[in-house]
């Protein structure tokens, strides 16, 4: 698993070119912590004075099944809570197969940012090599976020590593917006936790920016 980090094929998008909104699908397996990523992006967007809609999945589907959240940010009012097909600028996924579950929603110029590490809790999980190969044919960035999180001393911060990886692609928010939001959201857990999560976030940015 040394070659998990694929090189970016295209340069990072510029803020000017990113248009009036970001439509993001956050996904993974129930219990992997995608809602905390959503909370941080939501906090950053609110602070930045953006319009926001965020559709979440609660209830039975959270029990170890596939989960996703539709996150829409814009400088203009937003109508639909859900993202249309071919409408997502970004798919952020805690799990590689889950990243591909929502391909119908990925826009022509969209990007997938995902953990490379499969979460196998079903008997018919696809062949891992074939899965990684298919992911490589798509506009994707993947990384073993668990290892990166461990390496920077925050094994529970894999989702912050992932958010860091995705940060350069959330055109409508700056990296600084997101760092501030992490500090706000984790403030009640103490400075140490804030620092550890910022460190994981920065490691994610480094990893996605060769």
């Amino acid at each position: 698993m040394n070659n998990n980090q694929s090189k970016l094929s295209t340069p990072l998008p510029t803020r000017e070119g990113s248009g009036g909104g970001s439509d993001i699908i956050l996904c993974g397996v129930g219990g992997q912590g995608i809602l905390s990523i959503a909370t941080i992006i939501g906090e950053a967007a609110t602070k930045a004075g953006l319009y926001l809609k965020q559709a979440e999945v609660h209830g039975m589907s959270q029990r170890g099944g596939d989960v996703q959240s539709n996150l829409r940010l814009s400088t203009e009012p937003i109508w639909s809570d859900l993202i249309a097909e071919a409408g997502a600028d970004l798919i952020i996924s805690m799990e590689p197969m889950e990243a591909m579950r929502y391909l119908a929603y990925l826009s022509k110029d969209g990007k997938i940012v995902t953990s490379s590490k499969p979460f196998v809790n079903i008997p018919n999980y696809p062949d891992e090599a074939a899965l990684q190969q298919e992911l490589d044919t798509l506009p994707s960035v993947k990384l073993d976020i668990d290892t990166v999180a461990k390496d920077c001393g925050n094994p529970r911060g894999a989702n912050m590593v992932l958010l860091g990886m995705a940060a350069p692609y959330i055109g409508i928010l700056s990296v600084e917006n997101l760092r501030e939001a992490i500090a706000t959201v984790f403030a009640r857990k103490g400075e140490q936790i804030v620092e550890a999560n910022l460190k994981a976030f920065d490691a994610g940015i480094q990893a996605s920016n060769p």
Partner: protein
Amino acid sequence: MKKLLLGDEAIALGAINAGLSGVYAYPGTPSTEITEYIQNNPLAKERGVHSRWCTNEKTAMEAALGMSYAGKRALVCMKHVGMNVCADAFVNSAITGVKGGLIVLAADDPSMHSSQNEQDSRFYAKFALVPCLEPSNQQEAYDMMAYGFDLSEKLGEPIVLRVVTRLAHSRAAVEVTEPKAEKSLSPATDQWVLLPGIARKKYVKLLEKQDAMKQASEESIYNKVEKAAAKTGILACGIAYNYVKEALGNDANLVKISQYPLPEAKIKALAAECDELMVIEDGQPVVEELVKGLLGAGYSVKGRLTGDLPRTGELTPDCVAKALGKETGAVFAPAKNMAARPPQLCQGCGHRDVYAALNQVLADYPDHRVFGDIGCYTLGALPPFQSLSSCVDMGASITMAKGAADAGLFPAVAIIGDSTFTHSGMTGLLDAVNDKANITVIISDNLTTGMTGGQDSAGTNKYEAICLGLGVEPEHVRVVVPLPKNMPEITRVIKEEIEYKGVSVIIPRRECIQTFARHAKEKKKTLPQTPPLQGGE
């Protein structure tokens, strides 16, 4: 002030700020977060707003009606199928009328994300002859609470507020208003005694109010008209309005419908300007059928019944855009390396041990059937356990097992959770006891209402007493601890009780691992305030 709120939270805060005195509810996705928000809200706590969970939707509806009788504002919350449970009380509350404002919140679940059907609660409002509000976004959900309580008090009738999963569980910024005072105690002075003689008069009174309800819909700020030069007129109900705006922007010739009964004059005016109408509504084709009747057979009305929109499932921006001729479609083909990932019981969950033991014992009884119920343990129907033959409605495990046993089926086993048992299982158990039915009932007690996120369960610590009180023989009320190490004991107990020709109840009891972890965390938080522990054990 703006706050980022889930649709459910907007409803909760809207109710509190409208002077709510009590919320009555049983947990059910996607409505649960409303009551939870009120339970944790500082102002609601300070005011002592009632927010404790009820045993089921019927007890909730009746208690709320009682609070309304006393002159205060009350809210009842439930998922759509909860309307079936409280239907008797709800339908009759339209006949008695209300005193303090009463809102009946029904959260529908089209696409059945966490449900057994996709029934549409707007039918219930029409059935009971009361108004229904259907917000299109989180702001309207907030605003409609004060509006709904006012309308309820003005008409003297309960108001149904219908939301769907996508609104209940989606967040957006909401402009929040200053809280109003609660209503003071002022009990109704007329008789709410629905003896035939009084009920007949009250029913006529309810019918006389229908014109005022229609008038309120025609004048409602929520039923707005938007004009454009299009030949297809659109009726956009509730959140369907958002999908229409997403697809057409300002090019839609439409009536937005967020208050029922239907604003018939507005609909007829739109029909007169257009060649046809397209009805876009989440859930079942309620409005489509009504409008067909309103406009007559000669006028073209499109929607779910004509196939222009899918007959089942929730609306999406895609199916609405397609119906309006604006389909975009996917760019990327579906992934080849893909598998379904259904939800499953947590690793370490006590229900797992119950199913493992049950399957082991029942392997010796090829004719066995296990009748399931509603909760996390319904997942026992899926691999790896595949133990269940049925799951129909709250409490049906016990009564269906009884009916099957009456027919001669053996062994007939019922499995039901602790919260579901007190919700609707107790009365069925009494039937079984009175009939000496040959059934084995397993009350899988995890000390919580698990599937909806761990709310208090009404009968905790009372199960043995309830079963004994209902007449189950003391030697056939058995308690076990579902852990892998106890497998020999659990299987022995199950086997013995299946062999007993009568009603037996087995209670495997171990706390839900989710609430266990949460409680451990809460305990840890309070530790620094207690003196440090001395030495090791």
